[in-house]
């Protein structure tokens, strides 16, 4: 989640539908806005067709006026963050590559993807690009070996996604055992509260990884646990489809003190609906 310092940034954000398309900002006044990604489900199925009037947003308990709700037609930026450590070697890596291809194949015109792989080193294999063949090729070239810097990789993906100033889906695939990171998990979770990306995890571990669970929860995503023998391709597709069905809600905070942690509550006027979104955001002191 980002506090917009200028609507000029927001204009770029909303109108830059195609990667590489030059868009001129259309507003120049300074407005502070908050953007949140929201998933609404009923009985496990995403609910579509809702408008601004269907939502209620509370910032630190104070009801807010919603400026804009968008869904579906926004481009998706996927930062694929793949575990290439020894523990996913062999057949696991082959399955992982296939899953990555499945997800990339599901991207459409205007979408873009980047590939970050990690073992003890976190490496940007392909920068964000609409040329998806580049990502496919890099996926094929990925080799497994070494330790797992899951936490460092997650931080790198979050920062990378945020640098793109766009709606970013971060997919972290891992066996869930960090063995090599430098950055403490608490600092990464703190960062997750300050950035835009929504993180989904795909874990092959039978045990829940507390870090990945917390990271996805903070950003409004979740962890899909798959067995070691399963093909995670469908899980990747599920993540992408879910992300596309998320509503993007914007509002300009009012009646709340600036600065510090702001807890968010998002409600919807569907009694059986379940809302998944980030738990709050950090706002710098003005």
């Amino acid at each position: 989640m980002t506090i917009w310092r200028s609507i000029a940034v927001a204009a770029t954000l909303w109108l830059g539908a195609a990667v590489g398309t030059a868009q001129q900002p259309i507003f120049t006044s300074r407005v502070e806005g908050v953007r949140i990604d929201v998933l609404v489900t009923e009985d496990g199925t995403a609910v579509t067709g809702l408008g601004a009037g269907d939502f209620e947003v509370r910032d630190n308990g104070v009801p807010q006026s919603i400026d804009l709700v968008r869904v579906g037609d926004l481009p998706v930026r996927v930062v694929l963050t793949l575990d290439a450590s020894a523990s996913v070697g062999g057949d696991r890596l082959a399955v992982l590559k296939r899953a990555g291809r499945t997800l990339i194949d599901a991207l459409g015109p205007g979408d873009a993807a980047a590939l970050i792989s990690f073992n003890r080193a976190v490496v940007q294999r392909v920068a964000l690009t609409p040329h998806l063949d580049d990502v496919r090729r890099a996926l094929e070239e990925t080799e497994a070996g070494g330790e797992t810097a899951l936490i460092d990789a997650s931080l790198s993906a979050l920062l990378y996604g945020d640098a793109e100033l766009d709606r970013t889906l971060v997919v972290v695939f891992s066996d869930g055992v960090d063995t090599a990171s430098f950055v403490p998990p608490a600092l990464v979770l703190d960062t997750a509260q300050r950035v835009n990306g929504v993180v989904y995890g795909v874990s092959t571990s039978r045990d829940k990884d507390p870090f990945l669970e917390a990271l996805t929860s903070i950003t409004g995503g979740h962890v899909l646990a798959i067995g070691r023998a399963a093909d995670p391709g469908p899980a990747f597709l599920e993540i992408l489809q879910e992300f596309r069905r998320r509503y993007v809600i914007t509002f300009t905070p009012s009646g709340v003190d600036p600065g510090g942690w702001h807890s968010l509550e998002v409600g919807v006027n569907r009694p059986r609906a379940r809302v998944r979104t980030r738990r709050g955001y950090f706002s710098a002191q003005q």
Partner: protein
Amino acid sequence: MVQYTGPRWRAVLLALSLPITIAAAADARAGQSPPSDWRSQELEQWLAAVEGHAPGRVDSSLTGTASLSVADLRKLWVDIQALLAIAANPRVTRFPVRPVPGDSWLRTQYAREITFSRTERAVLDGLAARVRTIGTDVVRRRAAVVHTDVLTLTPGLGPDEPEGAWAGAFLRMHIGDGTSLGVEHGSLHWELARMVLDVARPNPQLDPFMRAWYRATIALGQSTESFDAVHMKRALALFPDDADVLLLAGCEREALATPLFQAFARSLRSTSMQSDIRSARTELGAAEAFFRRALAANPDLVEARVRLGRVLALQGRLADSLRELNRAAEAPIEPVLAYYVALFLGLAHEGLGSPSAARDAYRRAAEEAPGARAPHLALARIALESGDRDEMTARLSRAVRPITAGDPPDPWWQYRSMQGRHGKMWLDEVRRAASGPRR
């Protein structure tokens, strides 16, 4: 016992309880003679190798010793003790048998002491006379180097063993990325080296060679992330106030507190095996205690202070960590340690809510190690928080840059093994000491 080893595989020799030890079926035979197939030739071959081996070289003496079977080595374990006992006292008639730590075979084959026939005793007397001629101390040192060289210079040269040969032997476990990669049998050569050094030396603390050997072998093992808990335990028992040994002991416990080893320990819970890896909190506490003891023994041992600062931070004692790291930073220090100090100072400052000081520290770390990635990632995070997107992007691009040929590794990746960087040099010193005059 379990050991994990290899340049990619992390190794630790841990005292495991019985489930991983395969007990031999034979009954103990208290006071009995050695097995009927006892021959003197292995002992003669061993003594010839001790005399003839050029330390640090792969020569016929070494390859001959390396090719001894596990059965031969077990016999040698008993016979060398008897030989050295006779060399020390030609009239000795009782031969207590020390058990092989972690190897249950001996306990089932021999009891507390053994006897020899007249013929066997005559052979032993002759060999003991040779030991006295060479010098018992010289034999001890050279024998320790022979067995060390077998392990370090000719790994895997042992013979194909018949089925069941390893019954009762301890095991080494290889782990990588937090999970077990396989098990192999441990080598008796370490046990023989320790035994020959121990057996004829009533006061090891007065033996600088012995101290140097333990220091070198532990450091060499840790340089490949091979952590041998049995070896360390023995070294600590012999040299409880040695700063270098205490530093290495602290490093072992610090390593066992890392997610790599903790993940492995968790993976054992679903098996019948046990390890002596304790919780991360307990291991960090043990590491802190060893580092403090090392500094008490040698306040100028900066590496112990750097690592103390880190384990304090990991325990959440950030102000204490900062104090130790600042003291370390003031001392003359190797570049790699300066990198660690700056990196850990950055973390401590971040934890204490001082991003500006953290930024300075991380920048120093980045300057100390051009190949480093960790400080750039930390700086990218700080830049995000301060709203400096250009700086964030620039730092991030350095943190996740492609790995190219000749790109130096981040020293952070070697933190668990860096303490062993002097091991080879120290072992060469030990070899030179053993190469001296035969008497």
